[in-house]
Every structure is written in C-alpha cells, then in structure tokens.
C-alpha cells in the first residue's frame, strides 16, 4: 500500500538492495590485510598453474649431465634451472611447483570433504542428543584414537596410492575433529532462543540445522579448517616421503625431500 506509493524510499539506497553476503565481502575487501593476502594467494595459484608452461624445463625428464646444479644465484647455476636440479638432473623449481599444486589440491579437497562430513555428523549428533549422540560420539572417539600414519600405511600400502585414495585416508582421519567442534557449538546454539523461535514458526529439524545452526557454527570451525589445509599438505608430504604418497614420476614434496636426503650432508 504505502510501499507502492513511495518507491523512492525503498530504492533510495541501491547498496541496500544487495544481499547481506555481498555487503560483508565488500566490507572485508576494505581492509588492507585482505588485499595483501588475496594478492599473495592469487600469485601462488598462478605460478603453480602456469609455471610449468612458462619455464622451459622438465620436471620428469632425467638428464644426468645436469645433475646437482646449484640455484642460479650461486656459482655454477645456469638457466633455465632457477632453483637448480636434483640428483637426476630434474628442475627443482618445476618439481616444487607441481608438488605444491598436488599438495594444495589434496589439502583443499580433503579439508572441504572432512569439513562437510564432520559438520554434518557433529550438528546432527548435537542437535539430536540422546542415544544418537552417544553412538555417533563413540564412533568419533574410536576414529580419533587411530593414528593417521598407521591408517595411511594400512590403506595406501594395500592399494595403489593415488590422489583419490590419499584424500580418502585424510578425510577418514580428519573428520572427527570437525564433528567434535561442530557438536559442542551446536549444543550451545541449540539452547538459544532463535532456535526455539524457528521451531515455533514451524521450521523442520533439517531446516533448523542447515539454515540456522550451520551458519552460526561456521566461524569457529572455519578457523580450524584454514589451519587444517596446511596440516593436510604436510601429511601429503609425509606420505610421499615414506613412499605411500602419489607415486613417481609425479613429483611431490615428500619424494623431492626423500630423493635429496642421502645427499644432504654431501652438498
């Protein structure tokens, strides 16, 4: 009624019409930290994506003549091997970039999966309570008690390791933390009045869990997740180092270090 008669009021501020999320992003973009961090991240991504095409060398081709070349800023270094070569004459910068790409992909994908799986189980467990909660949390405890490396050796040692199985192992060992955190935050959120309010207007349990509880538990869990990407990358390197990671000739951080260890003291 009054709305139709006064369009200038409703549409006076176009910024208002945007979704809340868009405005939050815009607000975040105003901080210089956000800009610097984004720029760095973007640079790394571009380097790992396009580096292999730009650098005129091979990460896998063996060339005994060029083995143990030092980086170019040291005596004896030569182009195109900016960071030098390894014991088989393969370009180290290129190998590192490809290793980083693999590690990062495995880290991000596995964290996203364990995040979704863990949160779903945690929210459900905390929201339901009772026996559901007891059973799910005991399963979580059991899973938590199995060391990652032993789980990895068992599974990856029996199958042929590839990115999919590595991610599966990481997700399997990583989700309990998310389930635990999500559950504890859910227990607190469940008591809050807005959840009661949602039930009063007739919202289903699923809707409450997805639309109301999930967004409010995001901040504490997102923080864990960001740190976990780095942790998963380290695990990926460890797997590579002990030989149960992505198999050669594809370079990974683990195999690069493993290949170099016996020459470390001679260098």
């Amino acid at each position, binding site marked *: 009624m009054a709305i139709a008669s006064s369009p200038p009021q409703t549409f006076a501020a176009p910024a208002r019409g945007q979704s809340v999320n868009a405005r939050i992003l815009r607000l975040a973009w105003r901080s210089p930290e956000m800009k610097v961090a984004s720029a760095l991240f973007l640079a790394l991504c571009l380097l790992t994506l396009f580096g292999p095409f730009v650098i005129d060398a091979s990460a896998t081709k063996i060339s005994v003549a060029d083995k143990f070349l030092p980086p170019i800023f040291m005596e004896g270094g030569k182009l195109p091997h900016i960071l030098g070569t390894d014991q088989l004459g393969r370009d180290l910068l290129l190998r590192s970039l490809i290793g980083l790409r693999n590690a990062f992909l495995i880290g991000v994908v596995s964290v996203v999966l364990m995040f979704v799986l863990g949160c779903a189980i945690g929210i459900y467990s905390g929201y339901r309570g009772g026996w559901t909660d007891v059973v799910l949390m005991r399963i979580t405890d059991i899973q938590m008690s199995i060391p990652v490396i032993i789980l990895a050796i068992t599974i990856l040692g029996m199958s042929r390791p590839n990115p999919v199985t590595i991610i599966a192992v990481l997700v399997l060992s990583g989700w309990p933390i998310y389930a635990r955190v999500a559950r504890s935050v859910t227990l607190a959120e469940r008591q809050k009045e807005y959840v009661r309010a949602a039930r*009063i207007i*007739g919202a289903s349990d699923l809707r409450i869990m997805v639309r109301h509880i999930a967004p409010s538990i995001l901040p504490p869990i997102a923080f864990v997740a960001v740190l976990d990407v780095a942790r998963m990358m380290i695990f990926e390197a460890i797997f590579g180092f002990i030989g149960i990671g992505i198999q050669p000739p594809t370079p990974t951080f683990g195999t690069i270090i493993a290949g170099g260890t016996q020459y470390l003291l001679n260098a």
Partner: protein
Amino acid sequence: MAAQPLLSVENLSIFLGSGDAARKLLSNVAFKVEAKSVLGIIGESGSGKTLLSRALVNWVRPPLQVSSGTVVYQGRNLLALPEAEMACLRGREIAYIGANPTTALDPTVPVGHQIEEKLRAVEPGLSRSEARRRVIELLDAVRIPSALSRFDEYPFQFSGGMMQRAMIVDALISRPKLLVADNITQPLDVTVAAQILRLLRDLQRDFGTAIVFVSSSFGTIVEIADEVVVLDKGTVVEAQDTRRIQNAPVHPYTRELLARVPRLWHDVGGIPAVNSEPVVLSVRDVARTYEVKDRTSLFGKNRVQAVRGVSFEVRRGESLGLIGESGCGKSTLSRLLSSLEPPDRGAIEIDGVDVATLRGEALLSMRRRFQLLLQDPYNSIPSHVSIGETIAEPLRIHGLASGRKLREKVSAVMQEVGLSPDLQDSLPVGLSAGQRQRVNIARAMVLEPSVLILDETLSALDQVEQAKLLDLFDNLQRKHGITYLYISHDLAMVRRACSRIAVMYLGKIVEIGDNETIFNAPAHPYTRTLLSSVSTVEEKPFLPKDYLLEGEPPDPIHIPEGCSFRSRCPFVIDACRSIEPALVIKAGASAAACHLGMDDLPPPRICTVARGVTGLQRLENS
C-alpha cells in the same frame, strides 16, 4: 567533623573520548552523602547512573575521561588519589555492588572462600578460622539459609537472590563506611528484591553504613532512600528529601518520571473487560516432569516437577495474564503451550483440537494459529540473516507466499508493527531492543495467528518502549481479534493489559480470577505477598510487614507435602501440612487453592488518599 559530609561530589563532568568527537556523559554533577544516610540516585537507562556510581569509587577508565570536578571522601579527593592509595580505600572503606552478581563472583572458587579471601586481604592480621567465623556470621545475617554449609558451595549452586546477598556480604565484610549499590535489585524477583531492600535497611541501621543506592525504579528508591537525586542525561535536575520529591516534585522531568511509575491501585483506568466469546485455548490438567541425574548416586534420578496439573481457558479476543516468580514453571508451560515439548499428561486444545497429540503436517498447519513471542530480543532473532529474510521465513516454511508477493507481505507487516520497510535488507545488528522485539512480533504476525503467547516478551524493555508495544498489542487485538496469553512476572504490566489473571506457584495455579479481584481482593496469601512486594509509589492494600516471605521457593525436586506454599506461608494451619488444597471459588469471586477463608487473612488496608496520589493530583492540576 559532624558538619562535614562523608562524601561530596562537586562539579563532576565526564566525557567519552577526547578532542572534537568527545561526548559529554555527565556534566557538573554535584551532591553530598551524609554519614549513615541513604542517598538514592534515579535515572532512566542511559542517564549516566552506572558511570556516576563508578566515578564514586574512582573506576573511570579510558576512553572515559573525567574532565573536571572532585569526589571528596572524608577530606580526600578520590579522583586525584594515586591508584595504590585508592586500592586501599576501595573495598575497605568504600564498597561497590553491581547489578549482575553472576559475573561478579569467580565461578571456580566457593562463595565463602572468595569472601574470606577478601576479608583477609583487607585485614591481614586475621587468622583463617577467625575470618571464616566472621564470614559465616555475616552470611547468617543476610539470611542465607544454612550458612555453614553454603560457605563451601560454588556460585552456580546459589540462586540469583542468594548470590546478590553473597555480594552484599562481600561488600559489607570489611565494615565499609560507604556502600555504592548500582541497580542491585533489578534482576531479582519482586519478593526477593523486597527481602534485599529490607535487609539493606537493617544492615544500614546495624552497621551505620552510608549507602548510595542507584536505581531506575522510582518505587524501589522511595522505599529505601532518605534523599533522592534525579539524573537526566548526565545532569542532576533535582535533589530532594524523599518525602518531598514524592509529594512536591519541582522539576518537570521528575514529575514525568513519577507519573510514569505504573499504578496498580490508584488511577488505573482502562482495564480490559472480561468477555464471553467462545473459548479459543483450553488447557486441562497439563503436567510436565523432567528427570535429571542425581549427582549423589550412580544411577539415581531426580524428578523435577516443573508443571503439576495446570488448567485454564482463554476466550477469543481476551488477554489472560499468568504471573509467578522465576522457577514457578512459567517457561515450561510456555514450551508446552507452543508445542515445543509434549506434556506428560493433560490436553492443550486450540479451537477444540488437542495440539499435544498432533504430529507432522497437521501440527505444522496448526502452528499458524498459535505463536509464541520470546523474551530475549537479542538471542531470538538470528544475527546473520537480514531482517526481511527473518520475517519472511515463516511464510516460506508454510508456503504462503513467494517472490514479489512475499516481499510485499513482509513490508506490510513491518509497517504494521512499526518498523520501516527500508530495513528489510539490513542485518539486525544496529537495532535497539525495542526494534528487535518488533521484528519478533512481525515474524509471528506474518502468519496471522489467532493466539499469541507472550513469554516475558516485554520484560527486557524499558518502560517507555513497553508502553508503546502494549499499545501495539492493543491495536493488533482490536484489528485482528487476537487472543493473548501474557506470561510474566511484571504485575504492573499484567494489571494494565489483562482481563483475567492466574497466579502460579511451584508448577500450579494457586489463584485465578478477573483483574480487579486479583488486585483488590485476592484470596491466596501468595497473591497478596506478590502484591505487597511490588515496588510502587502509591499506598498498597497489602503491606510487606504482614506478608513478607522468608527464604525462597523450595526447589521443584522437593516439593513439600500438603500445600506447596506452606513452607513460606505466614498463616499456615494444621491442615496445610497434610491436605493439598484444590482451587475453590472464594468470597472475592476468584478461585484460590487455600484452606483459609477470606476472613482468616488480614483485611486489605483501606486505601485512603495516598501520598503518591496527592503528588499525582498536584501534577494534574499544575
């Protein structure tokens, strides 16, 4: 020495921030506190009361800045005192109690030990056992039941009222000359607040402590203070003797404050009448018991009887008030009524359909008919969702509108409850408590319910905002014929808004009747106690000295046999010990669950022209 006041504040101004952006919060405040007297400071929220009370103990920290003035305590300017010297005075000679006892006590240390620790810090020579003895003595003096065992209990084992008493002990243990009490009765139930007030008066007499009593409630202030300072937007507008300020307020702001104090007996006008429309909501013998783990045994369970058989009916377009103190089962009842939990037994019928047995789709469509408004305006709306989306959610869930139509409906309901439709796309972050509560109301109203349950919906708001929302509820009722169920502890609000009133105690309705009867001729001693402890500026028909309760309600695990009120009732007779009284119609036309007849209770004092009323009449004449 005798002529010199204990504390005098001169020309005190405090700013927030510095430079051009500075905001003046207190300007040129001046008053005096005589030794052994009680000074009341009254003001609305935001008037600078708390800031002033903190300045009295030199507790003003950046970005707040004292720009001028002195606080002279026994010849020394506290504001200029070095921190070390101030620390010697604070807690020793000048004590401070804040509004929130739950955050003032360390949750990990037993209450008695905290007080003992303080006492020994103040008097280092004291032996442990001597300190302990003195703390227990004082805990006894503030009537904490079985102080000896309470000494070793943790704060979470104390109720709000008991914690506030413990804070009083904590403040008085060092026998201070001056006590600053900032809004200490605000979070308490009326009967407990009345007990605390009486306690403070007794202690003040026994120990000779001067008290600065800060409060936003006129009724509380006039009950305790000898002299009153009225604070408005950081300036003292009036300082007077208590009796004079009540009878002949000078400043218009004081008159406004006084006029705004809700009246329960005099000049009430506009009480909603009882109607005879068909019954909309019918509650029959509803009960709910929770099982909680008994910590003293491995598998033991304690049964908490939160609601023990409640029955009442509400007619279409009527407002029923349900009053009671915290812990009486109000909130549990509101959960049962709004179908968040099923009752153990009994029926809750809305238009003849028992909602307690409904499930799934049937319950969902029934939910449109009855909505619950919650108390906390900050927690009850999600903070990460835009206001428009919050209000639109019920429509989406029930599939009532979408797209353009949805937006229009949301705008319409926002206008109806007094929110600008421009706010649709904003987050609730900057909203005031009142505006948030309007969002809450809009979310319920968008479903066009026929019954609205208000569970302490207005108790978090100040009086002005409360009055505005009550008007809004009135309008909505007239326009849509909505039935209200007010669940509250606020007697004045219920007096204004409800045609019939039910009083709850320990999970049962002890008295139910129409508004006039409940307030003027109640038949249950508990109802009379509630009425006697309400703080107001008018003369009451029931006086605290006849009805004041000792202690607190028994916990709902150990409900006394016979009449559940007998452990606190001043008029207990033999029958109360064994026979549980049923609700019967009494002489005053209300139904009450009490063995006593109206004649067994002291007659209501006839209200002559009360002091407060003469003040009011003066105001109207001027």
